[in-house]
């Protein structure tokens, strides 16, 4: 039997300006088979867009074979979309999220540090622009981003979260850009870890855990060989598993030595990991995650950074 391999896309990527370049499918609740929602050469009409806007649990997909075309389409039109003031910021965020996810996926697969750094710097400009637009809330972002587990999805999400925290904390836009790039690069060292360990469904044994704990070190090594990376980006990669009480890794430094950008990355990283589906567990809710994280303030997480992130997310919960 013919079977489609479907990849989820954000419904907000549909545009009334251009055809999507790929057949878009939806899967109605309770149905096994997907149905064609919008053909590749069709421009989404107002009716289709209104369905997308109103249906909160609508899930759209494209087939794997057309993924490259779809991504190329997003990249080709992104600048036009981004400049168009009639397009809501939420839709722009959805498109950018797809572009970031795909660009990182491609570059991480190629495994070339120079290209990954270049792509990350380019992407950080747009992510920062988006974060400085006050009409985009943490609520919007959490809803738009994918929450599956893949190093590139995770890195993209962490970068988006970092952009909101850094902007909210009053960092200058060039510093936010620097931090966003660091967020995109923070797990670069995982490229040196065997996927069988990274994606192991069960509990890691001591040896595997030791291998996993090497990733900040190997990420830093990769970045220190590139003249294109900044101190902030290198430290975010190196220190994002350090804890204020000195019980983190790889060095075990204390609060006075952990850079503020790394503290931001730690909060974003843990929040993203806990609210994403993993092979061995389902995602936790935002509320549960914030509660668990709040029990570790001052020991694992910086109070000010957490407070800032918590206020961004709580806006969502109170809505």
């Amino acid at each position, binding site marked *: 039997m013919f079977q489609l391999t479907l990849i989820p896309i954000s419904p907000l990527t549909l545009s009334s300006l251009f055809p999507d370049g790929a057949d878009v499918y939806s899967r109605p609740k309770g149905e096994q088979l997907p149905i064609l929602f919008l053909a590749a050469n069709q421009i989404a009409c107002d009716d289709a867009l209104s369905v997308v806007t109103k249906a909160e649990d609508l899930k759209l997909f494209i087939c794997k074979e057309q993924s490259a075309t779809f991504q190329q389409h997003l990249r080709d039109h992104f600048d036009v979309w981004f400049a168009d003031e009639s397009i809501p910021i939420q839709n722009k965020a959805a498109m950018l999220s797809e572009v970031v996810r795909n660009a990182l996926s491609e570059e991480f697969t190629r495994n070339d540090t120079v290209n990954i750094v270049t792509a990350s710097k380019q992407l950080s400009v747009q992510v920062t622009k988006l974060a400085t637009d006050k009409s985009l809330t943490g609520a919007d972002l959490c809803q738009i981003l994918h929450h599956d587990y893949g190093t590139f999805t995770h890195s993209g999400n962490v970068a988006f979260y970092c952009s909101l925290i850094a902007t909210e904390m009053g960092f200058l836009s060039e510093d936010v850009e620097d931090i966003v790039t660091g967020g995109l690069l923070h797990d670069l060292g995982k490229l040196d870890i065997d996927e069988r360990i990274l994606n192991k469904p069960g509990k890691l044994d001591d040896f595997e855990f*030791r291998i996993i704990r090497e990733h900040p070190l190997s990420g*830093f*090594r990769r970045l*220190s060989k590139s003249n294109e990376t900044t101190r902030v980006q290198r430290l975010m990669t*190196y220190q994002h598993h350090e804890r204020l009480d000195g019980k983190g890794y790889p060095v*075990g430094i204390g609060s006075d*030595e952990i850079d503020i950008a790394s503290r931001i990355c730690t909060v974003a990283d843990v929040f993203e990991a806990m609210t994403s589906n993993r092979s061995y567990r389902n995602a936790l809710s935002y509320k549960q995650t914030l509660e668990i994280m709040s029990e570790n303030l001052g020991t694992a997480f910086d109070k000010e950074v957490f407070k800032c992130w918590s206020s961004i997310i709580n806006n969502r919960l109170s809505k």
Partner: protein
Amino acid sequence: MLVKHNQQSFEQIIELLTMRIRLTESLAESLRNERGAAHTNPFELRSASRFKCFGEGIVTFTPESFQMPEQESPSLVIVRDLSRKGIGILSHQQWYPEQEVQLQMEHATVFARIARARRLAPFCYEVGLIIVKYQPVATPS
């Protein structure tokens, strides 16, 4: 003559630098007593056995190395163990992987690359160096 001259200048420089490493009592105790081959564990992937020692050294950055603004150079360190491929030191400050340094000891100069660092206590870091070039002080023929 050359050896003597080198020893004198090494001692003079050492005297100019302040030892800022803060050793805990237990660490100081083990430094006094540790000698011979170092213990190892099944997770270590070392290719050469390490031998415990105790001595002072001066670490400076090589011109090619990157440097973090908060790092001091030169810096007085304790040399704790040696192997054919690496050196273990204790330092009061953090060193970062891939930094390239020169370690001056009484009888040798070592050009090395930082492999890793681990904080043992405040102002006390255990740092692993990979030897790039070992240069003993020339002895008169």
